[in-house]
Structure formats: structure tokens, C-alpha cells
């Protein structure tokens, strides 16, 4: 419980309506994209950097911890108030300060929804390349908190690559500015880079300078259908070997084809073992040759290959892919999203590994993957009310992580560590690396006030 004094001060800082302390109001802030939950002491939604500073100082005076939160769609338990803490929600810092297409920069507040920024940019024929599948809901602050990926990473990289500078409120309540409006403005250490992907444990981001790009002049979307998932992964390897860098190589297996079909009726054949969505972009005159090469490569193994002819067809394909996570909820009441990545050459083995885990543990797993990046999202379907089954699922999830590490991969390609994967972190990292993380955390936040318990313990 927060004392009346603290609540009163919080209300003075951000205004009455931006403080939540009633049980029902707090409930939603106890959840995120995972199946975990917790209960916040209170929720405060600042609208300016100065308010953030005041809040941090107040919390320091009263020795209260803070959990930063954007839209709360993360898949790592990163916004769960797992310890006694106040949630600081950035959803009311939604200003787009500036869009400067001439100089390839936009300046935004952290609560801006990725999609809303894309809409504004599109008016000027620009875009912000990182677009996680959750882009209609997730915030720029959350994207940078997790260093989110999405379907375009193979060609365009991840959120990290589009962060030019940040305004950050440190755990001591002081404000710093990292980076700038261009590549060349970081002196000393690259503080921008260490804050990106730090899941709110180092600082609160209050302003973001992002790099924006002109929308490519041309784009081609292709679809290849396979009998078996393994076949699709061969096409992926062959395309890369041919020196082509598609923007997208997304894969869904038979289970996902069926659940998304229930949802979207996009017309994917329900008997296909796997579908690969392939997209290339660039100058119009380069499209035909790439499409031709990809078609030749895919057709060697695929049972069907087609090029989307209309914008509607392209939309349909993407609607299927983007609804993948939610669509499985019809099959079983609960699903666990996993996020493992392996070197591209081990992708076929990882697919085999997932099938083996499903068999060994007797669980149902559907696979969506950013195949070009070697990034798999095995979705385990189950019923959370069944304790025994839930236990088995946890074991299966652990087995997936260990399988990825055995294949020289990582336990997180884009969703982050948070609470969910913290327990496996020392399987991926040596003690020296774990200690390096702690050194960094200690430098920023010696008293462990920001998002305590996430990623590492001090």
C-alpha cells in the first residue's frame, strides 16, 4: 500500500486522473503478454520529462521501486510488478515532436504507438523500419526497451539500428541526453546502445530520436507452400546462399496455417505442411530478376510458388502472419510464446529440435518463425488451469531454450529476458559475462530501483 502522503504527492505531480490506486484499476497493469501476473502498489502516468524526474525523486525519498511500462505487450514478464513497486506508464507521453524527412530523423515521446508513427510517416512516404508484429499496439519505448525485431530484420536490422539518441531519466533522478540526431554524435561510451534492450532496468526513456527511411519504391511479396517444414527451411538456406537479401522470410507451419485460416480466411491451403512468405524491396527495375531467382530456388522444393499480384493479396498474406499468435487461442485456452534463435545454418536442425520437444513432452507446438534470421517462435498450446500440464509446458520451454543453446544460438532473439528467461541466463552466459551485466546495472542503478528483478539480480 502506498501511504497517503505519497499518493497525494503523486497526484500533485501528474494530476489526479493520472494516478491509479484502486484494486480494479491496478489489475490490468499486473499483466503483460505472458501468463504471469503481479500487483502494483500504484500506477502513475506522467506526461512530461519533468514529471518523470519528480516521480523518480519522490520514489527515491520513500524508497519505492519503479516498473516502467509501455503498452505491456512484451513476452518476457518485463512489466510485471513482481516486487513491491509503482508502475510508471508511458502511455500518456504520445507526442510526435518532429518528423524531419529531409534529414531522416523523427523525435518522439516513448508512449507513441509504433503504428501511429508509421501512419504519420507514410503521409510523407517515409517509414520506421522496426515493426514487430504487435506494432498496432506496442510503443516506441517498449520497442526500444526490448530491442524488438519483427519481419524485416534480415535486411533492415532491429530496433537498435534505428535509435540515434535518447533522453533518459537516471535512477538518481538526473536527466542525460545520449547520442544525437545522427550516427556520429556519441562521445565516450555508446550509452544509447546499452539502454536499448535494457528492459527498463537502467533508465527511463522520455524522448527518442529515431532514424527514418523513405519507403522503398518497389516491393514484391511471394508465397511458397511446402509439404514439410524442413523443406521450407531448405529454401531459406538456398536464397541466402544465392546472395539475395530479402526483407522478409517468414515461416508458418501447418498448425498455424490452419489457426490463421480460421481467423482470416486468406485462402492458404490447409493441407500444406508449411508456408514461407518472402518479400524483397528496392528499385522497381531490380524486382523481376530477384523474383525470378527466388522462384527458381523455391520451386525446386515447394509444391506451389506464387507472387502476390495485388495489394489486397499482399494484405491478406500479412493479416494471416500478424494474427498468428492470437489465432491459436481457439485451439486451447492458453499458449506460451517462445523466442529462440539459432545461426541460420542450424535452422533446419532447430525445426527438428522443436518437433522432438513436442514429441518428448507430449505437447502441441505450432511454429512461426522469422526464418531468415534463424528466429523461431514455437507456440506451446495448453490449458493453464491444468497444473500438471502447465508443469510439463514449463519443462518443454526449458528444453527449447537448451536446444537453441546446443545449436550455438540464443534464448532470446527479440522478446527479451525479463522474468521468464532469467533463470536460464547463466546457461547462455559465462560468469564473467553475467558479472559484466551486473557491473553495468550497478553503474546506473546501484540501489536496484528500476525494474528490479528483471534480467539479473544484483
Amino acid at each position, binding site marked *: 500500500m502506498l501511504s497517503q502522503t505519497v499518493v497525494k504527492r503523486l497526484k500533485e505531480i501528474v494530476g489526479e486522473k493520472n494516478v491509479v490506486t484502486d484494486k480494479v484499476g491496478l489489475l490490468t497493469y499486473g499483466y503483460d503478454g505472458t501468463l504471469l501476473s503481479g500487483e502494483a502498489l500504484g500506477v502513475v502516468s506522467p506526461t512530461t520529462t519533468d514529471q518523470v524526474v519528480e516521480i523518480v525523486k519522490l520514489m527515491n525519498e520513500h524508497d519505492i521501486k519503479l516498473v516502467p511500462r509501455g503498452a505491456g505487450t512484451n513476452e518476457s514478464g518485463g512489466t510485471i510488478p513482481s516486487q513491491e513497486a509503482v508502475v510508471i506508464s508511458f502511455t500518456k507521453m504520445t507526442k510526435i515532436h518532429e518528423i524531419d524527412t529531409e534529414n531522416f530523423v523523427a523525435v518522439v515521446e516513448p508512449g507513441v504507438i509504433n503504428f501511429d508513427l508509421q501512419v504519420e510517416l507514410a503521409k510523407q512516404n517515409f517509414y520506421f523500419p522496426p515493426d514487430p508484429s504487435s506494432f498496432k499496439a506496442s510503443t516506441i519505448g517498449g520497442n526500444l526497451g526490448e*530491442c524488438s525485431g519483427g519481419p524485416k530484420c534480415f535486411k533492415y536490422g532491429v530496433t537498435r*539500428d534505428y535509435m540515434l539518441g535518447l533522453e533518459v531519466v537516471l535512477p538518481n533522478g538526473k536527466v542525460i541526453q545520449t547520442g544525437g540526431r545522427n550516427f556520429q554524435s556519441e562521445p565516450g561510451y555508446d*550509452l544509447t*546502445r546499452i539502454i536499448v534492450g535494457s528492459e527498463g532496468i537502467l533508465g527511463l526513456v522520455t524522448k527518442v530520436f529515431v532514424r527514418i527511411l523513405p519507403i522503398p519504391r518497389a516491393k514484391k511479396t511471394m508465397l511458397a507452400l511446402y509439404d514439410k517444414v524442413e523443406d521450407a527451411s531448405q529454401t531459406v538456406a538456398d536464397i541466402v546462399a544465392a546472395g539475395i537479401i530479402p526483407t522478409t522470410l517468414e515461416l508458418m507451419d501447418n498448425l498455424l496455417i490452419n489457426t490463421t485460416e480460421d481467423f482470416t480466411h486468406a485462402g492458404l491451403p490447409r493441407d500444406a505442411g508449411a508456408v514461407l512468405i518472402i518479400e524483397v524491396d528496392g528499385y522497381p527495375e531490380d524486382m523481376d530478376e530477384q523474383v525470378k531467382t527466388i522462384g527458381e530456388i523455391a520451386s525446386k522444393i515447394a509444391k506451389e510458388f506464387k507472387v502476390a499480384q495485388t495489394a489486397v493479396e499482399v494484405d491478406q498474406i500479412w493479416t494471416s502472419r500478424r494474427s498468428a499468435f492470437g489465432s491459436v487461442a481457439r485451439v486451447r485456452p492458453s499458449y506460451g510464446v517462445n523466442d529462440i*534463435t539459432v*545461426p541460420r545454418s542450424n535452422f533446419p536442425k532447430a525445426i527438428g529440435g522443436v518437433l522432438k520437444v513436442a514429441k518428448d513432452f507430449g505437447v502441441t507446438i505450432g511454429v512461426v518463425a522469422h526464418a531468415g534470421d534463424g528466429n523461431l517462435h514455437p507456440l506451446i498450446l495448453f490449458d493453464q488451469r491444468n497444473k500438471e500440464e502447465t508443469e510439463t509446458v514449463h519443462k518443454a520451454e526449458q528444453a527449447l531454450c537448451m536446444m537453441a543453446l546446443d545449436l550455438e544460438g540464443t534464448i*532470446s532473439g527479440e522478446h527479451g529476458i525479463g522474468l521468464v528467461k532469467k533463470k536460464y541466463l547463466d546457461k547462455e552466459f559465462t560468469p564473467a*559475462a553475467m558479472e559484466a551485466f551486473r557491473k553495468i546495472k550497478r553503474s546506473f542503478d546501484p540501489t536496484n530501483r528500476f525494474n528490479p528483478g528483471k534480467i539479473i539480480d544484483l
Partner: protein
Amino acid sequence: MSNVNISKLKEIVGEANVIDSSSEMTKYLKGSGKPAVVVLPGKTSEVSSIVKLANEQNVKLAVGGAVVNTQGITGGIAMVMSRMNQIVEMDKLNLVAIVEPGLLHKDFILKVAETGLNFPPEPYEVETSSIGGCFSIGDSDSKSFEYGPTRTFLLGFEMVLPTGEILEIGNKCIKNVSGLDFIHFAVGSQGTFGIFTKLLVKLLPQPEAKKAVIGTFASLHKANATFNTLIKRNVHPTRMNLINASFAKIAKPGTEGQLVIIDLQGFKESGKNIANEVASVLTLAGGLDVKIIEDAVEYDEVINGWLKVRAELNAKPERTVEFVVGPMKMPQALAQLEALTGDLGAYPGVIVEGLLGYVGLALPEGTEKLAFATKVNKLAMSLGGNVKGLLGHKLKAEVYNDAEMWKQTTSLLNELRQQFDPKGILSPGVSLEA
């Protein structure tokens, strides 16, 4: 007197790899410091033992690719990485390589090209730079608009920490958000977080075609204006650079006027069309001798000319001021700059990286650098940019009159450094403050 235990060092790396006669040492050293010894380790465990020894005896140590900067290591150890120069693995399937830090950049890109791949980062000193130095400095170059800055190409490393432990991090996945991102944070840390002993480097397929378009201009401003035209036409070459008349003679002997170099790396089909578009934009704007270069040898000559000028600028840091503004702000920046410098064409050296909005200036003899940089910074800030590097950051903080923010930033940087190097052993000459 020095505390360095030379005989112990010889035990670690072998007699032949410890040099302590001052005449033999000089070729490994730059700067005015006087280290007691130069040591050339051959493997990671040796680097680790040397650093541990330095800690035990409280001796300062600095590292370099082929030549070590001696600032702050008088009586200490200069570690040269040139013996650790192997390509451990070239993995074409995953588009990565594992290399040792002493490998020369120029040797690496040769091998990478032989494999049909591409490693875009391009250090200032192309002839002497090591891969370890490349990632320790970090930074961007005129190809970064297309390919990203240097850090984009690091996926992991092995590092000997300032206390001597060996840290390994990263993997061959191009997407990896596990733990904190120490991988990219270490880029640019200039040997203060540790000594790279292996680097896991990301590579790209080679572009299908490379072309350049060059042209000369009587007016620097007219030359520069073509960049804005191209950006407005939605043309984004791989690089879009300009060299003023004095420097142009170094880049391409015999050049009269300001030299524009447009580099086009990409596909054959679009490359042809864009080259034609660029050539007409240059010609329409008054460019002379506008030429599309397709021949590989000639292409390399043009690019090497650019690199030569860049190295020239970099050779005299005390006489160089660099700044950035938004790319489209460049015409204003150059016009205002001329009020400070006089005719930029005749200035000792001016280079422009049009896509990055970067300007590098070689100052005339006798210029008060700090006073000049302060003026340039003011100009750049009024156009949304600033002077580059630590100096720029400090000047910026001064303009904001924000001593507080500057203090916060530096104390955070120093705290981080202290956490990793509690005794202050490594790279004492590297300052995190301007």
C-alpha cells in the same frame, strides 16, 4: 623506475616477443610516453596472464593494433596485437567470420572479397588499421547511410577484461537480445572495457554491381547543391561525397576544382539507371567532366583517392575540426561556414559526406582550434547538429549551459569504467572527457 617484471613477461610470451631496448621499441610506439616494455602476445591466455601480471604489480597497460599510443603508460606495458592476426573461421553460410584483433583491415577485406562477401566499415587509416582497432574506435564512414556504422558488424567477441578474466559473448545469430547488450556497448570503448582477443564479425553478400559517377565543379556550393537535388529525387547512393579543390588534387592528381564522388553499390539494372540520373543531375548543375565509371580498376582508383584524402585529414587531429548537421542543412552550413573561413574552395582541406551531413575541415596553420571549433559548433547547433566527438559534446553542453548534464554524463561514464577497471590499469591515456 618501472615495476614491470620483464622476466615474468618473457616466461609468458617467450623471449623473442618481449622487447625492452628503447631503440627497438620505437617502431611499435607513438606519442611521448616511455613504456618500459613492448610485448607481443600470441594467444588469448597470454594476453590474460599479462593483464593479470599488470594488475598484481599495479602497472599501466595500453594496447594497439600495430603501434601503441604511449600516453599514460610511462614505465608501463605496451601491448601490440599484430601476432594475433588469423582468420579463425570464414562462415559463408551464416555470413560471419571469426578473426583475431591484430589482423589488418586491408588483409581482411581481401579475404572477404575472395569469399564473395563484403565487410563495409572503412577506417581512416586503411593501410595500418587492425580489426581490433576498428571496433575499439567504432565510428561511421561515408557508407554508413546504406550499411550502418561499424557496430552493426559486430555480433560477439572474446575479450580479456582489465582484471585479466576472459569474457566471451555473442553468437552467430543476427538477432540476439539476451542479457544486456554489452556486445555493442563495447564498440567504441577504446580498450577501456578490455582487450579484444577475437571478434565475431557480420558480413554481407557482395553487391551485384559497383559504379561511380564523378564530376568537377568550379563552385563548392553548386557541387554540394546537387546532393540536395538527389535526396529530393529520392536517390540514395552508397556514398555521396565532395572534396574541395585543394584536397581534390591529392585524391585525383590533375583535378581542377571541387570533386564530387558518387558511389553506387547495388544491382545492375537500377545501377545503370541511377548512374544516368546522377550524371544528368551533376551536368545540369554545371558539373564538368562528368563521368560514369564502370571499370573496376578505375572505380577502385576513385574510391582510394577518397580514402587518401580522409587519411590526410585524420593525420593531424590537432588541426582538424569535424561537424555534422542534417544532410539537407548542408547548403546553409557551408554558406555560414564561409563567413568564418573565407573561400572554402581554397581552404587547406574540406570534405563533405553528403548523406551523413558530415564536414571535415583541415585548418590553416596558426588557427586557434578551440576558438574556431566553438564558433563552428554554434553554427552547427543552429542547424540541428554539432561538432563531432567528445569536443562536440562538451561544447554542446556549454551552449546549453548545462554543466549539470555534462557532469552526470561524465560521472556515469567514469563509474562504468571504474566498475570494469577498478585499478585503472588499461588504456590510461584514453580520456572519456574532452
